């Protein structure tokens, strides 16, 4: 018995399947994670978050596109546009440090957000899901770090 419509489970799983962070999850695990995700819709030119804001979570693009305006020059070489399936603000899952860039919607954009508190609960409650998501985020961050290092010519590639 549910207060809210439960018929959309397949649709939810389909959306999450297209997001690399959740690739490794089983259907039931995806539904468990879906309980923790918040859908937000941003109009064209609307600010998602600003550089310097206290970060509390990661935003994953479901449809539309986001533009990243980093304050630091070197970051411009790594991430400029965020397309469906990609994410932005992953570091906020691990600390409440300031956002290093401003993110703006380039068109009407649907995102899902996973927040630090929920992510911490997930890690404690269901380590299986937690490890899979954590590994996926670690892969994304390590890929970005490699891109950054490779583009900085004076720093040798790892």
């Amino acid at each position, binding site marked *: 018995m549910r*207060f809210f419509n439960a018929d959309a489970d397949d649709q939810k799983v389909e959306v999450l399947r297209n997001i690399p962070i959740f690739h490794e999850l089983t259907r039931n695990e995806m539904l468990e994670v879906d309980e923790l995700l918040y859908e937000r819709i941003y*109009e064209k030119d609307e600010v998602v978050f600003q550089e310097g804001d206290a970060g509390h979570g990661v935003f994953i693009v479901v449809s539309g596109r986001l533009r990243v305006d980093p304050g630091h020059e070197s970051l411009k070489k790594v991430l400029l546009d965020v397309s469906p399936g990609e994410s932005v603000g992953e570091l906020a899952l691990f600390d409440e440090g300031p956002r290093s860039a401003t993110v703006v919607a380039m068109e009407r954009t649907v995102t899902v957000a996973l927040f630090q508190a929920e992510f911490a609960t997930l890690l404690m409650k*269901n380590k299986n899901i937690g490890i899979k998501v954590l590994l996926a985020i670690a892969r994304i961050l390590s890929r970005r770090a490699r891109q950054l290092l490779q583009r900085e010519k004076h720093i040798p590639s790892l």
Partner: protein
Amino acid sequence: MTKIPQPGAATLVVVILSTVLLLLLCQKMIWLVLPLLLALLLYYSLRPVVDALVVRGWRRETAAMTVCFFQTMVAVGIVVLLFLFLSKAGSQGSFSRHVAGGQNLLRKTVGALEGSAPVFKRLNMGARLDDQHVREFGDDFVKKNLLPVILQLLEWLPSLLLVPYITYFMLTDSSRLKKYIIQSVPNAFFERVLLLFSHLDTSLQSYFQGLLLLTVLEGSCLAMGLALVGIPHAIFLGLAAALLAWVPYLGSIVGCLMVVLVAATDFPDKPGVAYACLGLFLAVRLLDDFVFMPMTVGRQLHVHPLLSVLMLFMGATVAGATGLVFALPLYGVIAVIGETVAQIVTDPRLRARYKAARQLAATAERF
């Protein structure tokens, strides 16, 4: 990082006034507030169990249903035991029998004091403690205070049936309900409001789990102590006294009085037993204040001692016993909400972003 403005005196005043207003409302709707509070207590206590079952592959609804079923069975068991105990106690004597037992103890204590110190003899307290007065007091008390309280409890009983029902839906639908509420929050304030929810959830979970742990610790200490002293029904009396302690100050006094009256009635020739119970309550009170409370509930509320006493007095003034019970937890919740709202309202970046988003939404609608 943007410095988050800290709430000032105005926020504190608004928080206190809101708490007082809500306490007044609580008193008027106690039939709903009581089951809601008990459901919250059960929700935060049972949520880890349901989560553990979900991790083991159970569906959340099935896990919640199973846990709620066992919780209801335990509650029914406790009510049946309570009913059996009360009917047995009722057949053995009445409230006035225990008052007479208390009077007997008082008379012996006063006699001993008058015998040992002339200053007590001059006060002539023993002569004032005659049987007629006490019997009249006992009967009057039963008619004027005890019967209305029992009738009130019977009135609340149907609403208590809501407890497992509310708990079940909290266990199955709380995250969906949270999402539903968050949907109505504008994008600009979304992260801050989610943080507020997270703080509230953590504070309430710690508070309710702490309260339950505190009750178990206090109840166990009292039950063990009373059993060692030789008081019958030690477990029931210990648990009842620990539950009564949920009402700050007044609850502890009533709990202690109840046990001392039982001891004085059951052991009329051994006043030492009643004094031992009194000593036990004082010892547990000290343990409670200096060890258990800081370890459990007190750590979570972060309320200044002066403010907490002030809130208790205000709560008692506007809503009586209800106010005493709800003043601090309600203040804790309102304070978190008030501080977050104040931070949002006083943050120019968030307000500017909200304004810009509204303009963008209006433009998008136009085209």
